C-alpha cells in the first residue's frame, strides 16, 4: 500500500520523539548508581508506576496487533485482550509482593534470592534474554509498519529509527527515563483510544464507510456448457485467464490494458465474479498491485458492511450507537471480509485476497482465526494452549517483573499493579471497538493487519491520525525501552557481574549495562527488519508461551514448594526455553514462513504452552527430588 504523507503527522511525530529525548537527557544527569540505572532507585510513585506498567505492557501487540487481528478476524483478536488482562491476576495475586521482597534489580535476583546458585544465575539470565528478544521482535516489526504511512519511509527505516531512539533512551538514563516515557505513553494511549472509540460509536454503522472508498466490482456471469464462464454484461472486461485451486476458481480479466484477478462465487443461485486485491510477482521480478505498478495506487483499502440490520430493519446507516447497540447491530449485520489465497499462474506468483460476506454472528464469537466448530483435537488444543500461555505468561515476563523493584514498598507494588489492571483492562475493552471500527470502515491494508487502528484514525482526520500514530510509536518506544533495560540487566548484572564475577565498580556496572543495551538494540533492529509482515499479537503470544514455560514454574515453585532445589529451578528454566522455542520453530506458522506447506509442520500447533508448561513443572519437581536435600538458604523470606 502507498500512503499520502502529510506534514502534520510528521511534525507531531518529531515533537513527540524530541520530548522523549529531552526527558532522557534530563534523567541522564540524575542516573549515577546502578540502583538508579536498573531500578530507578526504588523511588517511583505507585500511581506513576501503575500507568508506566500499562505503558510497558500495552505494547505494539496490544494496540497494533490486537486491533489488527480483531479487524481481520473479529472476536478471535479479542481473545488476546482477555488473556493478556487475565494474566495480571496471576501477577497480582501470586507473584507481585513476594517478588518485591525477593528481588534487587533483575528477575534473576529474585529467583536466586534463596539459593545464591551460579546455575540459576546463568539459566535465569539466558531466559530473560530469550523472552525479551521474542517480545522485542513484534515491537520492532510493528514500529516498521507504523512508519510507512506516517513518514512515507520504508519498513526497515522505521525499525532502525525505533532502535536508535530506544538505544539512546536506555543508554542515557536507564530505568528512570524509561519509566516516565512509559507513563507518558500509557496515559496518552488510553486518552486517544477513548477518543477514537467515541468517534466510532458516534459514526455508527454505515454502508458508505468513507468518501473515497473504492466500490468493488462484482460481475454477473453464466456457466456455458463446457463448464467455463461467460460475462453477462457489457462492462468492457474480457476474460483472459483462469486458475482453479481447491474449491476456488479465479479468472483473470482485462480492461483498458490492466489485468486483474476475480473470484467466482455463487449468491442466491446466480454466479458472480468478484474483484480481488492481488500482488503478482512477474518472472522479471517486477511486482504488480491489482495489475498495475505500485505507484498507480490501485491496491485499495478494504473492509465494509454488506448489509446492516437495525432494530429488525435493513438500513443504509444506523446513526450514533451506544457501546452495547454498536456490538449487537454488527452481530445482526453482514460484513465483507477479505480472505487470503495464493497460487501460481504460469511463471507468475499471485498473492490475493477475495471478498467474502461473513455474518455478524460469526464475527462476534470465537472461530474465524482459531477454528472451534467441527475442529480437530489439535485445533482445540491449540486454542486451550494459547489461552493458558496468555494467562500464565504475564507473571513470567522479566521486563514486567522488574517494574516491581522501582517502587518503595510491597504495598506500593500492589497498588501500582491494581492501577495497571484498571488502566489495561479499560484499554482492552476499547480494542474491541477500535478493531471492529476498522473492520467496517474501509481502512484495512491487506499487506499489514497491524496498521488497522492508526488507519482508522486517519479516516477520521489527519490530526487524530497524527496523535494516534505518535502515541503508537511511543508505545513501541516505551515497551522496547523496558525490554532493553531487562536484557541489559541480564547481561551486565546477572551474567557479567554475578555469574562471571567480572570486577566492576558501580560506574563500571552502569557502563556495562549501556554497552549491553546497545548490543541488544542493534540485534533487535536486524530481527525486526527480517520478520516484516507478521501479526504482532501472534508473535507476542509466542513470547508469552516461552515466558510461561521457562519462568513461571520456577517462580511459583520457589514461592510455594519447600523441596525446590537450585538444580531443579535451573533445569526447569532451560527445559522450558528449549522445548517451547523448539516447538515454535517447527510449528505450522513457522513452516509457512520458511516457504513450506504448514500441513507438513513437525508439530501440528502454533502454541506449545499446553505441553511445555507442564513439562517444565515436571522437570523442576523431578530434578528437585533427585538432587536431594534443599540447599541452605542465604536469607529467609518473611
Amino acid at each position: 500500500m502507498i500512503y499520502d504523507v502529510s506534514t502534520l503527522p510528521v511534525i507531531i511525530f518529531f515533537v513527540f520523539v524530541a520530548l522523549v529525548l529531552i526527558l532522557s537527557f534530563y534523567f541522564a544527569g540524575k542516573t549515577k548508581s546502578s540502583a538508579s540505572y536498573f531500578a530507578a532507585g526504588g523511588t517511583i510513585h505507585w500511581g506513576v508506576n501503575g500507568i508506566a506498567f500499562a505503558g510497558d505492557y500495552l505494547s505494539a501487540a496490544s494496540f497494533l496487533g490486537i486491533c489488527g487481528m480483531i479487524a481481520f478476524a473479529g472476536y478471535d483478536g479479542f481473545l488476546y485482550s482477555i488473556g493478556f488482562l487475565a494474566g495480571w491476576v496471576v501477577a497480582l495475586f501470586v507473584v507481585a509482593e513476594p517478588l518485591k521482597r525477593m528481588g534487587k534489580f533483575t528477575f534473576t535476583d529474585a529467583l536466586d534470592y534463596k539459593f545464591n546458585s551460579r546455575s540459576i544465575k546463568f539459566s535465569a539470565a539466558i531466559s530473560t534474554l530469550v523472552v525479551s528478544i521474542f517480545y522485542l521482535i513484534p515491537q520492532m516489526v510493528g514500529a516498521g509498519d507504523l512508519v510507512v504511512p506516517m513518514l512515507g519511509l520504508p519498513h526497515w527505516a522505521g525499525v532502525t529509527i525505533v532502535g536508535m531512539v530506544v538505544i539512546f533512551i536506555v543508554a542515557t538514563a536507564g530505568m528512570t527515563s524509561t519509566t516516565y516515557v512509559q507513563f507518558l505513553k500509557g496515559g496518552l494511549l488510553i486518552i486517544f483510544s477513548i477518543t477514537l472509540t467515541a468517534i466510532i460509536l458516534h459514526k455508527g454503522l454505515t454502508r458508505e464507510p468513507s468518501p473515497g472508498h473504492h466500490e468493488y466490482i462484482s460481475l454477473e456471469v453464466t456457466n456455458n456448457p463446457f463448464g467455463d464462464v461467460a460475462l453477462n454484461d457489457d462492462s468492457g472486461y474480457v476474460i483472459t485467464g483462469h486458475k482453479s485451486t481447491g474449491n476456488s476458481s479465479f479468472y483473470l480479466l482485462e480492461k483498458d490494458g490492466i489485468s486483474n484477478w476475480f473470484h467466482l462465487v455463487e449468491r442466491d443461485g446466480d454466479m458472480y465474479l468478484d474483484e480481488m486485491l492481488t500482488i503478482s510477482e512477474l518472472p522479471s521480478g517486477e511486482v504488480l498491485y491489482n495489475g498495475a505498478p505500485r505507484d498507480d495506487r490501485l491496491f485499495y483499502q478494504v473492509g465494509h458492511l454488506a448489509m446492516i440490520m437495525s432494530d429488525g430493519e435493513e438500513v443504509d446507516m444506523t446513526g450514533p450507537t451506544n457501546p452495547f447497540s454498536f456490538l449487537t447491530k454488527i452481530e445482526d449485520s453482514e460484513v465483507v471480509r477479505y480472505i487470503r489465497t495464493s497460487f501460481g499462474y504460469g511463471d507468475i506468483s499471485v498473492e490475493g485476497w477475495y471478498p467474502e460476506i461473513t455474518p455478524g454472528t460469526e464475527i462476534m464469537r470465537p472461530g474465524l482465526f482459531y477454528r472451534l466448530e467441527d475442529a480437530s483435537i489439535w485445533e482445540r488444543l491449540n486454542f486451550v494452549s494459547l489461552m493458558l500461555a496468555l494467562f500464565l505468561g504475564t507473571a513470567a515476563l522479566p521486563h514486567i517483573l522488574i517494574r516491581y523493584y522501582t517502587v518503595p514498598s510491597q504495598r506500593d507494588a500492589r497498588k501500582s499493579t491494581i492501577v495497571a489492571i484498571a488502566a489495561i483492562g479499560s484499554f482492552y475493552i476499547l480494542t474491541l471497538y477500535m478493531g471492529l471500527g476498522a473492520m467496517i470502515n474501509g481502512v484495512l491494508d491487506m499487506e499489514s493487519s497491524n496498521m488497522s487502528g492508526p488507519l482508522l484514525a486517519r479516516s477520521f482526520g489527519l490530526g487524530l491520525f497524527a496523535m494516534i500514530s505518535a502515541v503508537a510509536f511511543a508505545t513501541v518506544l516505551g515497551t522496547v525501552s523496558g525490554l532493553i533495560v531487562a536484557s541489559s540487566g541480564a547481561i551486565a548484572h546477572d551474567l557479567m557481574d554475578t555469574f562471571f564475577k567480572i570486577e566492576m565498580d558501580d560506574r563500571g556496572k552502569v557502563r556495562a549495562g549501556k554497552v549491553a543495551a546497545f548490543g541488544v538494540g542493534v540485534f533487535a533492529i536486524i530481527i525486526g527488519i527480517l520478520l516484516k509482515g507478521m501479526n504482532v499479537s501472534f508473535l507476542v503470544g509466542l513470547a508469552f508461551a516461552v515466558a510461561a514455560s521457562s519462568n513461571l514454574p520456577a517462580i511459583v515453585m520457589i514461592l510455594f514448594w519447600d523441596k525446590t532445589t537450585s538444580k531443579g529451578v535451573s533445569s526447569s528454566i532451560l527445559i522450558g526455553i528449549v522445548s517451547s522455542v523448539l516447538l515454535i520453530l517447527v510449528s505450522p506458522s513457522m513452516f509457512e514462513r520458511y516457504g513450506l506447506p504448514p500441513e507438513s509442520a513437525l508439530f501440528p500447533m502454533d502454541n506449545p504452552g499446553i505441553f511445555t508448561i507442564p513439562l517444565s513443572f515436571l522437570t523442576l519437581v523431578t530434578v528437585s527430588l533427585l538432587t536431594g536435600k534443599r540447599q541452605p538458604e542465604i536469607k529467609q523470606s518473611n
Partner: protein
Amino acid sequence: MLHEPAAKLEKDNAASYKSKLGLKLFFVYGLVYAGFVLIGVLRPAWMGVRVVWGLNLAIFYGFGLILFAIVMGFLYHLACSRMEDKLNGKEEKQ
C-alpha cells in the same frame, strides 16, 4: 554476593495472610477463566447465544472477565491493607 531489595523493606507480619488470600482469589479467577476456555472448546455454539442487553455470551463473558479482574484487584488490596495496618501497625510507611 547477597541479594537485597532495591528499597529496604521492614518485616511484613501480614505476608502469610496476603499469600493465602492471593492464592484463593487466583483459584477463583482461574476457575471462571477456565469456564470461558472450556465453553469455547467444548460448546462453541453457546458463545453465540444472546444472554443480556442483547450481548452474546462471548462478549458478555469476555467483558465480565476483564471487569471481574479489576473488581477482585480492588477487593484484594482493601483486605491486604487492612491486615497490614492491623499486624504491622498503621500504614506500612517506608
